[in-house]
């Protein structure tokens, strides 16, 4: 094959490579492509094992006893339908922003998220924890009646979800925090997590959607098969959005590995790179 012919074939194949890269990510029934950092997701499509379950039958969101693994967080978003995102997601222009929130969101996008607090190692509140690179573990502690979500990335945050039936603290007792106050319960095979009490010191998603202390999140976490975590969140903040809206994404399982030690604060060079649009 001549060099000219080979070049032509390669050029003709580029659109197909692009389309492949844009193809939907994991869906229940098959492993993910593992496009994010931390890699290691299944390399070839294989039938997934069934959802692991606790003795009482509800899904186990961690590695079964005797195994290791983690969720390959780092990809996915709450809007748009590409990649690992849910096919039910809104497009960006469908998010019901209040005018000030839309203007601020647009500014954050136009300045390429240069002021994202996450880059300065603030904790990833809400859905941000589920698309922060370097892995995620979800451990249910039935005896303690809580679920712990451990982030391998960012400032290596952990978050507690109380499943003992306790209510949220009253307004007088609230001290708004990065991770808020979360209570959860199983509805069939879905862990439904209700969270309030967030401060305004972080962006709850990489895209930069604004929020206020009135933010109320309802997360729905499920494991439709062994290799797939489905994450969906309803965002309700009446001081920022004109009505609640929902988005989410799939996350793939990385078997037979633990995530490595990583701390955002250690040799953090991201800040120097977050300069926005150069003139």
């Amino acid at each position, binding site marked *: 094959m001549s060099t000219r012919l080979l070049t032509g074939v390669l050029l003709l194949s580029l659109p197909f490579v692009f389309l492949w890269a844009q193809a939907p990510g994991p869906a229940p029934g098959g492993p993910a492509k593992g496009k994010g950092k931390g890699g290691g997701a299944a390399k070839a499509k294989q039938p997934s094992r069934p959802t692991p379950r606790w003795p009482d039958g509800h899904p186990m969101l961690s590695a079964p006893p005797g195994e290791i693994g983690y969720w390959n967080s780092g990809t996915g978003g709450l809007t748009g339908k590409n990649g690992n995102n849910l096919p039910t997601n809104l497009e960006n222009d469908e998010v019901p922003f209040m005018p*000030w929130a839309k203007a*601020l969101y647009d500014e954050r996008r136009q300045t390429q998220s240069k*002021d994202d607090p996450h880059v300065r190692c603030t904790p990833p509140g809400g859905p941000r924890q589920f698309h922060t690179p370097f892995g995620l573990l979800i451990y249910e502690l039935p005896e303690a009646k809580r679920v712990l979500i451990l982030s391998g990335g960012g400032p290596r945050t952990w978050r507690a979800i109380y499943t003992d039936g306790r209510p949220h603290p009253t307004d007088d007792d609230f001290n708004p925090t990065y991770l808020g106050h979360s209570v959860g319960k199983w509805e069939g095979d879905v862990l439904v997590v209700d969270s309030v009490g967030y401060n*305004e*010191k*972080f962006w709850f998603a990489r895209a930069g959607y604004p929020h*206020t*202390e009135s933010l109320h999140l309802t997360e729905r976490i499920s494991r439709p098969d062994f290799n797939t975590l489905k994450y969906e969140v309803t965002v309700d903040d009446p001081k920022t959005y004109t009505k609640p809206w929902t988005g989410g994404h799939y996350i793939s399982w990385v078997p037979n590995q633990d995530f490595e030690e990583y701390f955002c604060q250690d040799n953090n060079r991201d800040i120097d790179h977050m300069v926005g649009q150069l003139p």
Partner: protein
Amino acid sequence: MSHSRRSCLLLLFAVLAAAQEGHPLTGTWHGSWGPNATQRTDITFVMKWDGKNITGIINPGFDAMPLQTAVLETKGWAVHFEATAKDGKIVADGKIENVTNVRRSIVGKWTQGGRSGDFKIVRDN
């Protein structure tokens, strides 16, 4: 209302307004106004977005003034403030600079009574 009770309420307001990444005006802002670079008067704003309006005070403490008008125009991030001081009405028109940054600022023109000048306030971290 007694001074102590008013001070407590203002302190509470200031604590409640210690937010950073939400509404662009929410938070505590420090700066000054004056007719030139050497004649400056320190000013502090504490503002909060309640979902419909921006409320707040200027100079929390014994000389606090409630913000009577606080308007944000998102196109160009123009702001307009009005309040009543002991020596006359305050009218300030400015613009938020670097709006995505936690240390954003507002700069513009300030009139108070018969005097006028420029002002700049920077949001606390």
